[in-house]
């Protein structure tokens, strides 16, 4: 059993929870390799994917995970909905739940939105990304993919590169990797690294070459221009010059490191094609593992249901 009723953030999970999710994901990964990639565990469950922010990968991945568990799925995206007519978050979700939905997967632009919702409704909530706070399933699938590639995470060196300031992936990754005993460095231009981030137990490195030389795995993040309301570096070209990961840089290192990226990729900015498409990159393994990890999370949260959903 997980120690939590919702998956809001990695911060609230303990090491046993993460271990249990990984173990369950191993089983689902095996299911996904069969001809019939489906099990009927959740045939009596309905899941709503409520996306107040754009998403391709995460929404598709959740939807596939739900369908492969046999659940019924409804999708909601904020654009073109009653949200633009002024409906509040709680009202929107309560209306969805009134249609007898058992579980909500939510992405929202406001940090903390899933916690707020968890206080007001009874269904299980899975955070699919809230503002610049957490993206727990991404961190789980990242750590799962790393573990698959380099073994037990204890003592492994992981560098997270790029827009740390605006990245929920970075924060969830830091919590998750710390809990698994890995050592984490964040790297990027000083304007994109939040002050006092060392208090989370990570090292800070402003020199990309040094950061890469130190690590076993580099998780390269996207520059989130949509969240940068004031200029934090001069041009994308300048960013690419100093912090873009390219082949030349990787070849100059003393060992082969593993390259990851949560997507979507800005090719030629934070990562070059000759890196993203190389054999060192496990970007597509991450996507593949994402479905298994999400199946595990949904399955583990779907246990003993509240007899009465307070709507």
């Amino acid at each position, binding site marked *: 059993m997980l120690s939590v009723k919702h998956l809001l953030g990695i911060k609230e999970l303990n090491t046993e929870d993460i271990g249990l999710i990984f173990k369950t994901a191993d089983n689902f990964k095996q299911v996904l390799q*069969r001809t019939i990639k489906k*099990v*009927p565990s959740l045939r009596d469950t309905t899941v709503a994917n409520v996306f107040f922010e754009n998403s391709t990968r995460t929404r598709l991945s959740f939807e596939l995970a739900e369908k492969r568990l046999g659940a019924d799925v409804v999708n909601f995206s904020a654009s073109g909905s009653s949200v633009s007519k002024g409906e509040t978050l709680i009202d929107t979700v309560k209306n969805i739940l009134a249609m007898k939905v058992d579980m909500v997967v939510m992405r929202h632009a406001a940090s903390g939105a899933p916690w707020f919702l968890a206080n007001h409704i009874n269904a299980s909530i899975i955070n699919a990304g809230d503002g610049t706070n957490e993206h727990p399933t991404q961190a789980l699938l990242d750590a799962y993919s790393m573990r698959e590639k380099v073994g037990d995470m204890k003592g492994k060196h992981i560098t997270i590169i790029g827009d740390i300031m605006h990245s929920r992936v970075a924060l969830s990754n830091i919590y998750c990797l710390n809990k698994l005993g890995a050592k984490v460095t964040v790297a990027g231009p000083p304007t994109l690294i939040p002050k006092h981030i060392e208090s989370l137990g990570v090292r800070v490195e402003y020199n990309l070459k040094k950061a890469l030389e130190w690590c076993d795995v580099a998780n390269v993040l996207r520059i989130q221009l949509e969240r940068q309301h004031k200029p934090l570096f001069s041009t994308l070209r300048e960013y690419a010059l100093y912090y873009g990961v390219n082949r030349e840089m990787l070849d100059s290192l003393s060992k082969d490191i593993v390259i990851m990226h949560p997507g979507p990729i800005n090719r030629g900015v934070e990562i070059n094609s000759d890196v993203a498409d190389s054999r060192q990159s496990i970007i597509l393994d991450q996507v593949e593992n994402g479905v298994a990890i999400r199946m595990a999370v949904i399955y583990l949260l779907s*246990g*003993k249901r509240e007899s009465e959903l307070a709507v």
Partner: protein
Amino acid sequence: MKTLLSNKQLDLTLHRLAHQLVENHINFKNTAVIGLQPRGIHLSGRIVQLLKKITGNKDIEYGKLDITFYRDDVHTSEIHVPSVTDIPFSIEGKKVVLIDDVLYTGRTIRSAMDALIDFGRPEKVELLVLIDRRFSRELPIHPDYTGYTVDTILTQKVIVYWEEKDGKDEVVLIDKV
């Protein structure tokens, strides 16, 4: 606590079951054996060992099936953590012998048949159990090979101990408190 099968009796029963299987499947050329996780695999392991000895066929196809994701009580009981499913061969067109230690309500076997069908269409499915708790069935399921039949009531529980896991071979009936 009552002993249903002692070490010696269990050994005899296993040999009988193995011979009964050989009677029907001769050399196991087109038959696969599948043990149900987690508790049926000790029994299936022993049976397969005996079958190899009796038939001389060292390549009997043997798999393990976990039915956790096929249970019909995901929302009414505690969530179960799955064990490994390992079926490294095709069951398409084969005869399959499912093996579990105790047959009680029949729900596990129902789930197992669902799970099995997801791997292909077997020609025939048979069921072997060590202990058949008669008159407790909730589904129309009946074993083809039975080690020992016992009449029990709801408050009783059958426990099968295996040397490799529990340090002794024995089957006992206890009263739950």
